[in-house]
């Protein structure tokens, strides 16, 4: 069987005909298998949804109880038969509950890795390399200029700035699902034990992380706190809020942004960021290329991001590679900005 007979891109997403399901569909479908809880991958309105317990919980938090007709939870390492294929979930290291999905049919195995990172993250299960014949990889940071470095060093930079400007508030823009909790966990690992403040949009998901046993220390809603009391503190907020009227409640705020995009100075300046923190939940260039090599796949399909460079790299290594035309996915941070902007007052 040819790989494209097992999985193929269609307008609704990645379709598995012999299995009768779609992976991360962008339109409502009968049966959806979902890699992780970010809104561009996990959408409401499907018939049956198969995902990890955490991903299902996050969808419920965001979309309400009726986000799908039926749901089924699956654990990492658990195998299941769907139609003529077998599927198995493996940790993707992207956010809590994120998974790569291995789809096998006869003797061909394709891994749809969703979004992933191979860097350490105290808030989720580490990424696992899954040997396969075809590897479907994201390419959000698919250029060799993206090398994220150690996230702990970036958090040190943030703490040094808090020490240097004790009369100012530090506002850290971070995607509310995953990035925010990772930044908080890293701050705790770096020894910062003061209360950390949360923008209202982050509260529910952050408390959910805590309920799954991830210790985040003392957290406080920022709403209602007096301006003067926010001097010298750190507040986590959705990226779009850090340039919004909302920031006027803070004393002379230092605007930080935790994102892989912050590696490129022009991107940071364009957004008016004063303290860029290169912390990413996606694999960087070295991570992407090392992972591709480690899977042993002879064929690579590249999706959402900088496909050209990664396809070129694969070909120069003698691997069959092609960009996969999938629309509707992107950088979750950009999505969140657009969404939160609507709510601007």
């Amino acid at each position, binding site marked *: 069987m040819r790989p494209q007979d097992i999985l193929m891109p269609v307008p609704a997403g990645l379709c598995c005909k012999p299995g009768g399901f779609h992976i991360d569909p962008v339109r409502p479908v009968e049966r959806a298998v979902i890699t992780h809880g970010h809104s561009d991958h996990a959408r409401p309105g499907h018939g049956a949804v198969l995902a990890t317990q955490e991903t299902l919980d996050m969808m419920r938090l965001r979309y309400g109880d009726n986000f799908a007709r039926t749901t089924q939870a699956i654990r990492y390492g658990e195998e299941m038969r769907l139609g003529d294929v077998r599927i198995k979930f493996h940790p993707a290291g992207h956010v809590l509950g994120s998974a790569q999905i291995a789809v096998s049919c006869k003797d061909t195995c394709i891994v749809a890795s969703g979004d992933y990172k191979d860097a350490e993250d105290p808030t989720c299960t580490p990424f696992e390399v899954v040997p396969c014949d075809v590897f479907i990889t994201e390419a959000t940071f698919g*250029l*060799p*200029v*993206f*090398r994220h*470095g150690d996230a702990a060093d970036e958090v040190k*930079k943030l703490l040094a*700035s808090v020490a*240097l*400007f004790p009369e100012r508030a530090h506002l850290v823009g971070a995607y509310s699902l995953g990035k925010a909790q990772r930044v908080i966990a890293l701050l705790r690992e770096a020894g910062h034990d003061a209360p950390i403040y949360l923008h209202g949009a982050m509260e529910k998901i952050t408390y959910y992380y805590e309920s799954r046993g991830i210790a985040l220390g003392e957290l406080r809603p920022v709403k209602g706190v007096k301006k003067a009391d926010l001097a010298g503190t750190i507040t986590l907020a959705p990226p779009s809020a*850090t*340039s*919004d*009227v*909302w*920031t*006027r409640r803070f004393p*002379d705020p230092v*605007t930080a942004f935790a994102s892989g995009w912050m*590696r*490129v*100075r*022009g991107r*940071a*300046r*364009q*957004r*008016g*960021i*004063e*303290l*860029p923190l290169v912390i990413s939940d996606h694999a960087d260039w070295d991570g992407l290329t090392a992972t591709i090599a480690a899977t042993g796949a002879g064929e690579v399909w590249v999706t959402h991001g*900088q496909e*050209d*460079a990664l396809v*070129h*790299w694969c070909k*120069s290594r003698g691997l069959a590679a092609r960009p996969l035309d999938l629309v509707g996915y992107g950088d979750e941070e950009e999505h969140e900005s657009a969404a939160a*902007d609507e709510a*601007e007052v």
Partner: protein
Amino acid sequence: MNRFAELLDRLGYEPGRNNKLRLLTAYLRDTPDPDRGYALAALTGALSFKHAKPGLIRDLIMDRTDPVLFGLSYDYVGDLSETVALMWPKAPLPGHNNPPPPTLSEVVTTLRTLGKTELPKQLARWLDELDETGRWALLKLVTGAMRIGISARLAKTAVAALGDKDPHDIELIWPGLAPPYPDLFAWLEGRGDKPVNSDPAPFRPVMLAHAIEDTDFSNLDPADFIAEWKWDGIRVQAVSGRDERGQMQARLYSRTGEDITKSFPDLVPSLHLSGAIDGELLVLREGRVQTFNVLQQRLNRKVVSPKLIKEFPIHLRAYDLLGEDENDLRELPFAERRAHLEKFIKKLDDPRIDLSPTVAFDSWDALMAARADPASAGAGEDAEAVEGVMLKRREAPYLPGRPKGQWWKWKRDPHIIDAVLMYAQRGHGKRSSYYSDYTFGVWTSGEGGEQLVPVGKAYFGFTDEELLQIDRFVRRNTTEKFGPVRHVVHEPEQGLVLEVAFEGLARSSRHKSGVAMRFPRISRLRWDKPPREADRLETLERMLKDVTAN
């Protein structure tokens, strides 16, 4: 090097002056000698490395990366140093034998003596040893393209804060100091005496004027003042003196004390008498003062070509004398200094340096008439380069800073047009949550009928209350968003009219409208005026003609 790199990196993002100062002072306090001294030298522009050209850096990266990947990356990042810093492959040396990254001092002292042929290898070695930010800073440093929004003055202010000194004190001794400035730091930290400025041509902190208000005149007696034209050039101090070997040294300083002599080598031979002139730098062609737009071609040039010198002949118009030979004249009343100046200029007898004429007047009304029409009040053909008049108290000594009641500037009324707000962008720092940068346009006839064409951008002139009002208007009337930019409704019957004041107008091929404004600012919000009644491009073109016809 890494600590310096972190500083540059952070400064590049920090919009606020005070916060920049805090970062600089913290760095200078925490960094040992001689690194901090070389950092200060780098920030004040006292270092230059002539061999490190962009081509060399491109060659280095091409040897180490796939050209297709480099092309895609450079295209994405848009800055050579940054692309190379980010892409530079990790050094192949494993284990614990890696040399530590170079210190800033090591880089500076090595580059001083290194030959051109050895440079690529040495640079590559350092790039292997440094992290990304370190590589970026190294490349910015060696190519002399730091552009992080720090003036030499700001760096000196930061170093002054280290010892709680006045920045003027640093300016005074600065010309006698050399990198890495151990004596300066010793003095600031109370470990040594104040360094003596043995410079024969030192800078003296300048005296500045207040803008005069209508209400001020009733308290001022015209008889106490001398008036001069306010020239639209740049304020400079030209200082000459003999060094210990008897050689004449001449220097030209900006109003903040930056040594800009290198940009104006054509003026140096004219400074052949020992003294310190306060005056205006202008471009003169056939005896006529050119506008600021012409002078601008000579500013901020690293390389001054013979062609540039010939096409833009530089001139100094003198209005004060601060010192002559060994004598400090600053304590004398202005009227006496002016007499010394007149004699000095006569003795100098140089076509490149002349005296700024005084404007005769016996009442404020007479001066107002002269200011409204400089051409017939003595400025003649130079009238277009007159920005207004300066009033100087006869009895005033030369005091640094902006002392009250001594000097006044009385500018000509600015040009004013009514334009329509088209786009708004968020500001920086304290203003990052406000739409505070405005692009405005005027009407013109286009293919599709009447349309607005952008003519300029302004981000000040309004009050805090007006900023809130515009911000609210922008948020409620956005038609499209592009990243940080919002398109604001601008239809004949719908939109916001801004009264824009500006100082001058020039032709510009960079702007779609063909004109560029000098110093535009929002002078009033015209909520009362519908956009269709705003000005037209023809009005600006007419202003431009008036300017060039003179």
